[in-house]
């Protein structure tokens, strides 16, 4: 049995007095795509953002329980959130390239973390990231163009390239394809599948089919609780919990 | 990048400012009436000597004296202009702030014109006419007063034309307004014997009766800008305006001064002391600053030169009504000797 890379034990998350997540226990295995599904407001995005502490941006948000990455509690006061986020990258729902050139977009993380001391190294690293994000062939001749001159799907892949440039252990994706057309979605999904070899990916999605297609493990959240978690195949063919069944088959439960 | 630049610039500016440079030009404040004369002298002084041109601020007589009396030192003005004499209360205040020796200079007269458009007939008024036309309350014949009932000039005095009373004048903040109230209004006011008697028995009541202008729209506050009043008179030939003699002189093609008590607001008449609505103009010098700020004494010399304030001097061209030759002599001697004010 492989050791989990991310491990949640009894995680409760509150916004002020309102509890958004109840006692979540969840183990995320390395080099797997884990999909978080569930109806809106079920807490899946809250949980995702708890993993790289993006919840810190919301002053009223409070996390209790233990959430560890590689055995370290990320809410330990000694943990530097900047170091954490360098290890846990994130890709957002809407492609959000910086209003800079394609090159600068990818190089940004490398620059702030001082990962590529020389210019040629930086260039190599940017190329490597774009290659791995499957974007190199499309943009290699226009790296100095603004990132937002790309199409939606390309932009999202640029964001993925930007995230992998700093070589994180984990990449969190918050509905990365919801703003993309099916072709772009397919390309990104393919990319996610290929990234699995190097990274651990946690993805929030509203598309059951997408979860079924790209993930190996699926967690179903409902009303702030983790209802069911297991192999994607099982969740989508023979879910154990009736709430899961009702949700994935589109029933009123 | 840009933010760094501007910050450096700001820091640089502030550090430069810290050791304030010694002031090397005369600083004059005070009356807006004296301002045109003071500035003319300042300019000539700056051009004809090696001293810097004095800086002249128009702050009004009261404001000027307040600044002037605030203390001794580079931070405080050297000279203040006044369209009235310094008050004893002001001298006291000066003294408490260490401003002890003040040299008084009377530079000439200013007439206040009561004028209308040249399109209309020239008026011949008495001070009593002016008072009755503009006072808030007027005597009703039996020793009491009533709110001003007059709406046309012929109601005030049957010899005057049947023209609506409409007078444009400066607001209460103006020295010209104070002088007008004191010279014209009060002059007309005390032509009533019982009111004159009131001055002795009840001075506040007397003052309030004589100095209060009506507020029913017959007197219109037209702002401090005398040019504006002149323009409005051109547009409305029925209206009268109250402003300084220099504006009348400069605009004699469009406005004419009414005769007051039979005397026209003309240079000679004001200089001769015949025109009733005329006041003296002064400036005051801080003796302690002489020697500290370069050029004050020389500036006084320029001001009291015959070429400047004499009958043919350039200030006369600017509308200043000069003192008489003998008075000039007296004042010039006092100034030469820097004899401090003694009240």
């Amino acid at each position: 049995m492989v050791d989990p890379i991310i491990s949640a034990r009894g995680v409760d998350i509150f916004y002020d007095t309102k509890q958004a997540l109840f006692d979540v226990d969840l183990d995320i295995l390395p080099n797997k795509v884990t999909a978080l599904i569930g109806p809106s407001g079920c807490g899946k995005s809250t949980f995702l953002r708890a993993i790289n502490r993006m919840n810190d941006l919301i002053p009223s948000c409070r996390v209790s329980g233990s959430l560890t990455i590689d055995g370290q509690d990320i809410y330990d006061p000694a943990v530097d959130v900047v170091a954490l986020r360098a290890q846990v990258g994130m890709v957002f729902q809407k492609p959000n390239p910086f209003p800079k050139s394609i090159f600068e977009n990818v190089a940004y993380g490398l620059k702030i973390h001082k990962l590529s001391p020389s210019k040629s190294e930086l260039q190599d690293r940017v190329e490597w990231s774009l290659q791995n994000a499957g974007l190199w062939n499309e943009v290699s001749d226009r790296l100095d163009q603004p990132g937002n001159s790309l199409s939606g799907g390309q932009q999202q892949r640029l964001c993925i390239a930007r995230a992998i440039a700093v070589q994180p252990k984990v990449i969190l994706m918050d509905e990365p394809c919801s703003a993309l057309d099916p072709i772009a979605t397919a390309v990104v999904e393919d990319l996610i599948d290929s990234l699995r070899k190097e990274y651990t990916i946690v993805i929030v999605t509203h598309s059951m089919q997408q979860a079924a297609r790209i993930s190996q493990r699926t967690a179903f959240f409902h009303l702030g609780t983790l209802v069911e978690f297991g192999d994607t195949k099982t969740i989508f063919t023979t879910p154990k919990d009736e709430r899961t069944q009702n949700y994935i088959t589109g029933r009123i439960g | 990048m840009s933010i760094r630049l501007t910050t450096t610039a700001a820091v640089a500016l502030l550090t430069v400012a810290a050791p304030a440079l010694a002031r090397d030009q005369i600083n004059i404040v005070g009356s807006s009436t004296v301002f045109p004369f003071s500035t003319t002298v300042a300019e000539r002084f700056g051009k004809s000597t090696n001293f810097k041109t004095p800086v002249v601020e128009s702050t009004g007589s009261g404001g000027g004296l307040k600044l002037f009396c605030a203390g001794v030192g580079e931070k405080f003005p050297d000279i203040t202009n006044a369209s009235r004499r310094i008050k004893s209360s002001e001298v006291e205040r000066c003294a408490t702030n260490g401003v002890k020796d003040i040299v008084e200079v009377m530079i000439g007269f200013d007439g206040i014109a009561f004028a209308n458009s040249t399109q209309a007939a020239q008026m011949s008024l008495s001070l009593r006419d002016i008072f009755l036309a503009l006072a808030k309350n007027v005597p009703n014949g039996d020793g009491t007063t009533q709110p001003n009932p007059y709406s046309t000039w012929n109601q005030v005095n049957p010899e005057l034309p049947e023209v609506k009373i409409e007078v444009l004048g400066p607001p209460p903040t103006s020295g010209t307004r104070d002088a007008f109230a004191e010279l014209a209004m009060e002059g007309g006011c005390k032509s009533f014997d019982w009111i004159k008697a009131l001055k002795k028995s009840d001075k506040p009541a007397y003052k309030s009766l004589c100095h209060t202008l009506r507020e029913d729209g017959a007197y219109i506050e037209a702002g401090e800008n005398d040019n504006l009043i002149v323009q409005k008179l051109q547009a409305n030939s029925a209206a009268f305006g109250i402003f300084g003699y220099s504006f009348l002189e400069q605009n004699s093609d469009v406005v004419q001064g009414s005769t007051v008590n039979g005397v026209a607001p003309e240079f000679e008449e004001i200089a001769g002391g015949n025109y009733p609505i005329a006041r003296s103009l002064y400036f005051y010098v801080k003796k302690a600053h002489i020697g500290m700020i370069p050029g004050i004494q020389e500036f006084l010399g320029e001001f009291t030169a015959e070429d400047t304030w004499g009958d043919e001097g350039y200030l006369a061209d600017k509308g200043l009504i000069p003192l008489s030759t003998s008075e000039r002599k007296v004042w010039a001697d006092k100034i030469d000797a820097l004899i401090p004010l003694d009240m």
Partner: protein
Amino acid sequence: MIDLTKKAGFGLDQRHRAEQRFQWAGKLAIATSLLFLLVMVGSIVTDASGVLRQTQIAVDLDLGPENVNPSNPQAASYGRIVKSSLRDMFPEVTRRKDKKRLYNLVSPEGSFEIAAMVTDNPALLGSVQTLWLTASDDLDLFLRGKVDISLPPKQRRISDAEITWIKILEDGGQLRRVANWGFLSSGDSREPEIAGILSALIGSAFSLAVCFALSFPIGIGAAIYLEEFAPANRISDLIEVNINNLAAVPSIVFGLLGLSVFLGVMGLPRSSPLVGGMVLALMTLPTIIIAARAALRSVPPSFKEAALALGASPVQAVFHHVFPVAMPGMLTGAIVGMAQALGETAPLLMIGMVAFIVDIPDSVLEPATALPVQIFLWADSPERAFTEKTAAAIIVLLIFLICMNLIAILLRRKLEQRF
């Protein structure tokens, strides 16, 4: 069949009419405001046109050794030389009063002009020279037809005798009209014919430079902190309310503050553009802060989020991504504030910048006035010729404003990023 040309039935007639009415109303509104603008600018330009040229008068001056000591030409009384020359030109003038009028044809500046010419070119000394001197404002106004000679002599500034002299001079080719560069290159004067705008222009420029240097970094800094870092609590709310209130405080109040703090406590020099700029900076700060915060708020939060998710610190996220995008908007706010500051006189009054200042300031510490103050002072001057100076000064102010806006637009262009 569908009738696509059908007008009735959907209230189409009425709807089209309403639309037409609105469009016409809009066009009318624009036309009206344009008309007002045109009238305003037109009248100012017409008034100001007189400033473009000035009249000069040719005078034969005896600069011989008996009048001017060649070793010390500065000590000579050029005023007397001018007067005697004028007397020579019109020997029939004998009465004292008439002589004075005669002397009045030449600007009082004339004697200083001779002194300057002699210093520049000592070769002029020793003989009789014909020099062009600035004519007086009255002469200038008369030549330009601004004096109504149909009025009785008592009611005009130019007497019949003067008109005769002017005609003689004109016929003798002794009058000319030249471009009036002096208006742009000299300081204020009590003589309208030589009064210039430069000291006020430089004063304004200095003040605004100080104002910008102080208010922009401080305002932007405050805005960034308040918008991006300040915790949302009662103190922040209080500060926000106060900033909004400050923006509405009458500007004179800032003048009073400047008087008591900058002049009183800090002892900075009175009438100086430094203090003026500082006071204007106080006045402009709220505007800049409010505009800058609005600009920051309009930046999509996704940029900041993306940067944070990459491991940028909050300060890095703000300064690398939010700030550059908000910069053009901040600049616009700053320019609006500066334009406001440019037009202010009230606060300057309290700190002594509403003053007659001839000398052109070399630094922010020397006394200076500002463009609106100059306009105010000239508008309040008795001499008729100052009317057109006032108009010209307004135009200079407008041009200054246009330049400022132009710079802002150029900066924006440069900084603006598409996203």
